[in-house]
């Protein structure tokens, strides 16, 4: 293909990604977005203007060399694109699927002003998926340094930190509390958004090639304490995430049919409850489901519930029912990724904006039978800069519901803090750590991801894992620091 002028490049419209049609995909748990074809990827890559000062890179928490990988892709040099990607990111098939690109790299793209940003995320996914099929590049561990690092948690932060350290030649052991590695990628994000096979493959190629050991079923805090790890390892990185769910303090939260989004999603994703009884873990979803909250987790829960309803309907012939998202603010404040909101809407999730639950109603059997809510209006901006919702007096009303799922955010997993003397925490339960280096106030211990920030994104956790790895490496390489520490 001849080199195009910038004018020609800008004339090419942004390419949509092929996807399963809404009426089909609500009947299965298969991936919704199907990925670019080779032709679509090449054409989309042609849209990049190769800015001299690429601002997209600034928007990426791990600093992926975006113009370079896109250029390699459009030259047809896929191996080069993979190599460029891996310099900064070893999990592109995952990030391409779950990053909120519209607020990161793509928000900074010069073409974004016209709503036509280069589809960087989709191209990243294309490169990641190519590598999973073709295996052009094998990550190599660095020459052994003789230093050992324990990484707690195999989610995005822990994995990224482990990979970077192993590339530098340190021996890394990851301790995972669940029976499968991947953390929130495996228990939280549904199959239709991030297939387990992708996680398994991307994880395997990163971890196996680098000689990283993963010990599942190890609940740090109990199986070993952090101090016990420090006796055996030269440094410890905590990437334990935030999984402890919050429930609203309203009447009825202990009724049958009320659960956290984490419970619901763990049953569906990690335990494959949607294939019960072939898989042993059941998952129950009613005919009228209310998901409280409007973040990515709420969208995942609502869309999973919708699928379970439609799969049941296909069996029993009854109408599938309804799934509502109940959110106290308005459409404008929805914190979920744009694509997730859009997909949920397309699939028929009903949005009740400016609506706040005040009580869950139960029947004589202790089961949920309804939700009492109050209408809200937006008042003055609060500390987060968003206009805070204020109840409208006298606007209480009831909705019939049989399942209520809370997706209101989570706090750090508590067990890892058992007997962790000297590890300072905030009043929110998060660990106090330097945002640039991940250093905690306990010598030899670094932390990053949701355990430090509270629930955030996969990519911000990966960024934190990366920064901590760099600082751990500095520490392990500096004889003076290391011997004191």
């Amino acid at each position, binding site marked *: 293909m001849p080199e195009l002028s910038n004018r020609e490049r800008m004339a090419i419209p942004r390419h949509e990604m092929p996807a399963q049609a809404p009426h089909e995909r609500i009947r299965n748990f298969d991936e919704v977005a199907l990925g670019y074809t080779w032709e679509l990827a090449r054409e989309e890559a042609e849209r990049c203007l190769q800015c001299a000062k690429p601002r997209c890179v600034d928007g990426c928490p791990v600093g992926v060399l975006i113009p370079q990988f896109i250029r390699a892709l459009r030259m047809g040099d896929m191996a080069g694109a993979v190599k460029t990607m891996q310099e900064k990111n070893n999990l592109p098939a995952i990030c391409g699927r779950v990053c909120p690109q519209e607020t990161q790299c793509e928000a900074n793209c010069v073409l974004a002003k016209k709503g036509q940003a280069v589809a960087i995320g989709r191209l990243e996914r294309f490169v990641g998926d190519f590598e999973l099929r073709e295996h052009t590049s094998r990550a190599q561990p660095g020459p052994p340094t003789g230093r050992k690092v324990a990484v707690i948690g195999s989610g995005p932060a822990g994995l990224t930190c482990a990979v970077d350290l192993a590339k530098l030649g340190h021996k890394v052991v990851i301790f995972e509390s669940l*029976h499968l590695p991947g953390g929130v990628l495996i228990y939280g994000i549904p199959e239709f958004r991030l297939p387990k096979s992708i996680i398994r493959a991307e994880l395997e190629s990163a971890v196996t090639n680098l000689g990283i050991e993963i010990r599942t079923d190890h609940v740090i805090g109990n*199986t070993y304490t952090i101090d016990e790890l420090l006796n055996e390892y030269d440094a410890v990185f905590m990437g334990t995430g935030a999984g402890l769910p919050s429930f609203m303090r309203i009447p009825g939260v*202990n009724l*049958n*049919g009320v659960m956290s989004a984490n419970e619901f999603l763990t049953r569906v994703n990690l335990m494959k409850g949607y294939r019960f009884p072939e898989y042993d*873990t*059941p998952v129950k979803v009613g005919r009228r489901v209310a998901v409280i909250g409007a973040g990515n987790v709420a969208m995942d829960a609502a869309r999973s519930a919708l699928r379970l309803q439609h799969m049941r309907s296909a069996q029993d012939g009854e109408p599938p029912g309804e799934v509502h998202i109940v959110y106290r603010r308005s459409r404008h404040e929805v914190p979920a990724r744009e694509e997730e909101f859009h997909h949920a809407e397309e699939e028929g999730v009903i949005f009740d904006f400016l609506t706040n639950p005040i009580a869950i109603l139960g029947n004589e059997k*202790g089961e949920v039978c309804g939700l009492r809510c109050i209408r809200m209006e937006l008042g003055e901006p609060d500390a987060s800069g968003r206009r805070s919702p204020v109840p409208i007096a006298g606007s209480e009303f009831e909705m019939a519901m049989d399942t209520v799922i809370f997706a209101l955010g989570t706090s750090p997993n508590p*067990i890892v803090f058992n007997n962790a003397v000297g590890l300072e925490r905030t009043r929110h339960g998060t660990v106090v750590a330097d945002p640039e280096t991940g250093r905690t106030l306990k010598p030899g211990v670094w932390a990053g991801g949701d355990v430090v920030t509270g629930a955030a994104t996969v990519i911000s956790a990966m960024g934190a894992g990366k920064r901590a790895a760099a600082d751990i490496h500095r520490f392990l390489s500096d004889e003076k620091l290391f011997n004191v520490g």
Partner: protein
Amino acid sequence: MYTILEKQRLSDAIVLMVVQAPHVARNARAGQFVIVIADEQGERIPLTIADHDRQAGTITLVIQEIGKSTKQMGQMAAGDAFHSVAGPLGHPTEIAAYGTVACVAGGVGIAPMYPIARALKEAGNHVISIIGARNQSLLFWEDRMRSVSDELIVCTDDGSYGRKGVVTVPLKELLETRADEIKKVWAIGPTIMMKFVSLTTKPFGVETIVSLNTIMIDGTGMCGGCRVPMIDGARFVCVDGPEFDGHLVDWDGLLSRMQFYRNEEQLAVQRWERLRETPTHECHLDKVVPLRR
């Protein structure tokens, strides 16, 4: 590999297994539990650690075959391996020299009670144990419990062995005659039994610790499925428990929560028994995958 090294049948529906799990054994203490998965399709089942051997790297599990997964585990033999064993989980029992204490255990609850009674005895307490079961065939470990108790009362609901009646009857007699002496009571068994033990001790004002076994998924504080309604708000059994003050538990709320998946549990058992009785096809899996046995 979490290999089953030893299997012993304790009663018609209760098996004991000694399982290789050095990572659990090294820090395990009385009162803690593990999450066990039978096979790749399995669910995460919380089981109390009935005993451990740090040197051998083993833990002892006592399993009541009641649902699909526990029935399946009961069919596994020495040499087989579990898919996953994670732990130890939960807070250990607070062992101290209290004076005279009572350990009340029903059915399969006798197994987790044994290490607690033993630890209490070793700490210098005068241990009075009351163990019970529906009938004699469901009773086990009388000798073990006797060896760690200063006094032992055995009862069966139907009178087929020991005293006839439920465990709360001798407990009440004990409290009526020696209320000042008894400093603390532990109760482990079916939820309904723990409820009535708590109701029995309450009028006497004797602190009562119960060990709850609720619906649970991850067991590490991530799902909230195990939350138990208490008089002063909900708690998570996996991270706040499994032991709680029995006088603060909202027992009817808890009993109701535990019924939530009853239909699914029955469906799973029926399906499993049907598949075991009439295999629908000849299985060739063993030709592809080497059998572990």
